[in-house]
């Protein structure tokens, strides 16, 4: 295996709502941006992976991008669609199958909370009928217990959302571009206790494309390249507590995020203390808090001090969700994980503009989590 694989082009279609443009057209837009950024043509792409959760197959994009006979594999892996596409594209280059590969994710969801079909998740109909099959409930149930066990306050939940909206004001691809103050966040209607409506992200639209290349190709092109130090994608271990769980083991168990995080750090040969900027799955405020610990950046309960001291702010010791995360960008499922990698690429290249993390960040960490209990982590190095 050749692990000298780099991102040489990154493109994004703004997240949010774009009426009149299909999810796949947003994907095409992102691919063109990424190709321009990489300084290559569509015909130079030797392998492509991509997908969406609700906006159709990715390989149809060749109609718009060009009929070059490129092998294009559709990825349908729920919240890990983008992470899976990235993992596959990276591995194709690492395996020596090609020198330039594309990973693309896009989506376009209807308004309102996601509604899942019980049978798609191997669950009985009554589970959905009785109103227990909501992702928002899972996050609330998980943070409710976490707060009780580890002394996290409601105010800290609010600070996470306040930071997200503040970062979003500085980010051109974010959906929510207006600040929301802490009092408004805390006093807003409760969706699922303890989480108010400003503490949840919303389903949205958007697309991200990344062009990956071998080290050989990077030298040939003279690219502004960011090395992929590691990618790790893991499903849940025994005894974990996941979304859509009618029962949980009393013995407790591991978490897919912990497993993926450990694997990614091991593969990169570094630890949490080496990370300069992180994008952590924040489908709601509590998720960012718990994922800080599950990814090894702090101990359980220390997030209270992290948020109070501003350590995860843009100028802090380790900025988290520098583009406003899911809270400010919304969650187009197929694109969301790749957005995190896009943002780290921007930050490590020093192209963040008003939201640039100071002092030349060298190592970026991204983490996505989704149903029915899976996590994907990518570590990038300048």
């Amino acid at each position: 295996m050749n692990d000298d694989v780099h991102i040489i082009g990154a493109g994004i279609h703004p997240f949010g709502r774009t009426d009149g443009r299909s999810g796949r057209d947003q994907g095409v837009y992102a691919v063109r941006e990424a190709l321009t950024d990489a300084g290559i043509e569509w015909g130079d792409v030797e392998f492509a992976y991509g997908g969406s959760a609700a906006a159709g197959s990715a390989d149809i994009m060749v109609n718009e991008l060009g009929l070059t006979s490129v092998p294009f594999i559709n990825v349908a892996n729920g919240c890990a669609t983008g992470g899976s596409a990235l993992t596959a594209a990276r591995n194709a280059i690492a395996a020596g199958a090609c020198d330039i590969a594309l990973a693309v994710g896009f989506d376009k969801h209807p308004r309102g909370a996601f509604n899942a079909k019980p049978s798609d998740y191997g669950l009985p109909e009554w589970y959905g009928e009785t109103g227990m099959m909501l992702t928002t409930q899972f996050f609330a149930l998980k943070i409710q217990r976490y707060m009780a066990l580890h002394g996290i306050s409601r105010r800290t939940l609010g600070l996470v959302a306040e930071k997200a909206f503040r970062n979003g004001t500085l980010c051109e691809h974010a959906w929510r571009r207006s600040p929301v103050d802490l009092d408004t966040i805390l006093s807003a209607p409760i969706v699922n206790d303890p989480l108010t409506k400003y503490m949840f992200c919303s389903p949205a639209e958007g697309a991200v494309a990344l062009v990956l290349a071998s080290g050989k190709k990077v030298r040939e092109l003279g690219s502004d390249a960011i090395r992929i130090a590691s990618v790790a994608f893991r499903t849940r271990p025994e005894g974990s507590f996941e979304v859509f769980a009618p029962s949980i083991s009393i013995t407790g168990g591991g978490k897919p995020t912990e497993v993926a995080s450990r694997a990614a750090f091991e593969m990169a040969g570094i630890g949490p203390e080496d990370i300069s900027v992180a994008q952590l799955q924040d489908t709601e405020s509590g998720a960012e808090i718990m994922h800080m610990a599950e990814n090894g950046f702090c101990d359980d309960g220390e997030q209270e001090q992290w948020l109070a001291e501003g350590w995860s702010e843009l100028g802090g010791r380790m900025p988290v969700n520098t583009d406003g995360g899911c809270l400010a960008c919304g969650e187009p499922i197929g694109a969301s994980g790749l957005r995190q990698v896009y943002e780290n690429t921007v930050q490590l290249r020093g192209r963040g503009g008003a939201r640039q993390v100071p002092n030349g960040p060298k190592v970026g960490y991204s983490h996505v989590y989704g149903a029915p209990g899976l996590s994907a982590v990518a570590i990038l190095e300048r």
Partner: protein
Amino acid sequence: MSALTPIAPGLWTDEAEPRLIGARRADGEIVFPVPSGDAAALVEPVALSRKGTLWSWTTQGFEPKEPYNGPQLFQPFLIGYVELPGEVIVETRIVDASPADLAIGMPMEFAVVPFDDARSTYAFRPERQP
């Protein structure tokens, strides 16, 4: 309430003090509900304890989309997880309580309650003090 049909067969026992029906896997782990399909042959049904402790809880303040199929008009409800000691932690409706009444670790007891005009479902409520 005897006129109500259970929301699904096989969720709880038919006895004066009904109990949830879980399933013991070959490795001893108990899950709920009893799995369907081929996995059902690999487990042994087991009636679960009527008493446990509150593991976590939340509110459902807005009407869920389909597949939710509850009564009109929508009434906000509570859900949570209850740990049945030595058995399993089950997700459940919580009844006869408001958010202010709930604290993680408090004792809970099993109940079969109306779901809508025609159907019953299972729930837990804070244990009544003798």
